[in-house]
């Protein structure tokens, strides 16, 4: 089983709910020992895709190969080898952290010692606390603890840092990097582009149930062109945007938040041209930012929307 280069292979996966195409022909391969990330806004189909692979939902069509075996739905054998952390982590509230881990450990034939897991997720001090008394970050660390209690080969983590403060998020990231070092294969969904950029070896960007781009974070960012990005807030003005076009500026304007994003290899020239046109039209330019392009720009370029738009 370990000899397979790809632990999971998904081909033309589809799941429709009436007219809603939750997953619409998704295909990808997950390399052993990598952090594979499904990046996309809420409702893109990331969780549905993950839950089909995890065996929680039945696909309408498509092919799933996991640990080298094609399955319609994973069985007990595969469940012994995977670990899962769901998007929401509710557990039996009046059990302690240790009891919860012990309970889940008893479900598997093999696995880690509860003490080792407590140490790994840094919850030793909280081992006697009831689950309901844990903070969001602690609860998320417990969820990861439960996901690794059987020492799985493959981990599915569905938005493991959503709702956490930056410090707690960072602590989860460190855990995931440690797991990667231990040779675990991690499948991660997120709508945080910085999370995907920081952790992922391979990113699939999903939107409306489809994968719209995939590659390493660096390749994806490079694919949109431009060494730098200039962001400004402006009022919507058609002739102004036309003038930007005429100037040959590569831009995306988000009419919802009135944010103009320009990709360029020559920052000074682009700013000079931008300000000249704005002045000529009497348009105020505010909140200027110059930065390196990121996955958010990739998504914006591909969809015209931002990842965390309402």
């Amino acid at each position, binding site marked *: 089983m370990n000899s397979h280069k790809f632990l999971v292979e998904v081909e033309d996966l589809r799941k429709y709910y009436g007219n809603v195409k939750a997953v619409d022909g998704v295909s990808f391969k997950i390399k052993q020992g990598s952090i594979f990330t499904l990046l996309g806004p809420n409702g893109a189909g990331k969780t549905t895709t993950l*839950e089909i692979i*995890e*065996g*929680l*939902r*039945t696909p309408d069509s498509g092919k799933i190969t996991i640990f080298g075996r094609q399955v319609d739905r994973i069985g*007990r054998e595969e*469940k*012994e080898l*995977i670990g*899962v952390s*769901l998007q*929401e982590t*509710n*557990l*039996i*509230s*009046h*059990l302690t952290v240790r*009891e919860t881990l*012990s*309970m*889940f450990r*008893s*479900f*598997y*034939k093999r696995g880690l010692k509860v003490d080792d897991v407590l140490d790994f997720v840094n919850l030793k001090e909280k081992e006697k606390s*009831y689950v309901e008394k844990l903070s969001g970050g602690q609860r998320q660390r417990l969820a990861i603890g*439960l996901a690794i209690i059987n020492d799985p080969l493959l981990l599915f983590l569905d938005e493991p840092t959503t709702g956490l403060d930056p410090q707690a998020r960072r602590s989860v990231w460190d855990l995931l990097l440690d797991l990667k070092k231990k040779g675990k294969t991690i499948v991660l969904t997120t709508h945080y582009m910085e999370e995907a950029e920081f952790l992922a070896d391979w990113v699939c960007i999903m939107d409306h149930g489809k994968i719209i781009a995939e590659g390493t974070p660096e390749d994806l960012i490079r694919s949109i062109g431009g060494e730098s990005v200039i962001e400004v807030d402006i009022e919507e003005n058609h002739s102004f945007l036309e003038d930007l076009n005429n100037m040959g500026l590569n831009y995306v304007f988000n009419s919802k938040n009135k944010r103009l994003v320009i990709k360029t290899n020559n920052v000074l020239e682009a700013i000079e041209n931008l300000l000249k046109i704005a002045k000529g039209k009497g348009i105020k330019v505010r909140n200027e930012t110059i930065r390196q392009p990121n996955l958010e720009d990739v998504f914006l370029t591909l969809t015209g929307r931002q990842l965390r738009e309402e």
Partner: protein
Amino acid sequence: MIIKNSTYFFKSAIREKAYIFWCIAFPAILMMILITIFSSLYEVKRVNFDIYLVKNESGDFSNIIYNVFEDLSKGEEKIFNLKIFKDISIGEKLLEDLKKGKTKLIVEIPEGFDSLVLSNITMRMFGADVNPVPIKVYTLRHSLSSQAASMVVRSIIDRMNLEFVKRMTNVNEYKVKSKILGSKKGFSYVDFIFPGIVIIAIFFTGMFGIGQELSWYREGKILKRFQLTPISPLNFFLSYFLSRFYFFILQILVLSFVGKVIYKSSVNPFSFYFIFYVFLTMFTISTFGFFISAVAKNTNSANVIGQILNFPLQFLGGIYFPVNDVPWFVKWIVIINPITYLAAGIRDTLGIMPSPYPIYLTILIPLVYFLIFLLISIKKYRNMELT
């Protein structure tokens, strides 16, 4: 693994204060309240009246009457607390005692009673039609106990008249044989309510406890989390049911302590019939809980479904009071209510109250409910996509 997992579910339940209150403390408190309110209302106490007997004669006939009253005022089964007054006339003082309730009734054997009876008998022997010899009975018109005492005295005097007639004439007496079926002891509300409260405690844990908790497990994606592990659904549900089984046992122990030790119920919680019906109740009611969790969309709707089922099941199941004579428009709820049969069956087999239904029905109908709800729940959970 089932036993080990069941201990985790049990630990979680036992640590929840609300769960402990509603499933253990509340039924015990309810039983205490009901016994306090209703035991005196339902309990048939031995009738025991205070009466005065004024005896102004000492002949044979008046002595017969006197002896009858005296016999009825002796021993454990006495009907009267008798106070004898001899050779006095009914005066203001005795009548004042009657008015004040010191006595419920005054019986006076008037002066000349014996000679009147003797002459009456002689006259009858010669075929004369004579008026009966009077015994005077004083009662208080608006006092129920006084009227009740007078009815008892009247029946005694009627019986004595009959005896006189029998001895003087050739009257054949026809005897009706009677046999007391069931317990000879009187109705005890403590015995009546104790098995009922045990059923209702199981009902709270089984229907509300299981229904709402499993709905929350579903809504809070806890079931989904279990589904991702190799544990089978059968293993999960058996573990969960076993944890509630421990809880049922705990409930029964607490209620048995209250019923047996505090209120001296004669029901033996270790008797076969008690245990049998308690088990039948556990299985039947638990499937109600599983059913609710399977059909409810979330915890709130599980609560609503539970409340809708609760009122007819609990109050029209004969738990708190007999429901045989309820009006026709609610009678059908009584008839289709499995609690009716469980309560009737357990009380009948324990000799507390005869069941209006055949005993086999008190087992069969809950079993039918058990099977129906179990099959629906299994089907619902099988087809459920936990999202």
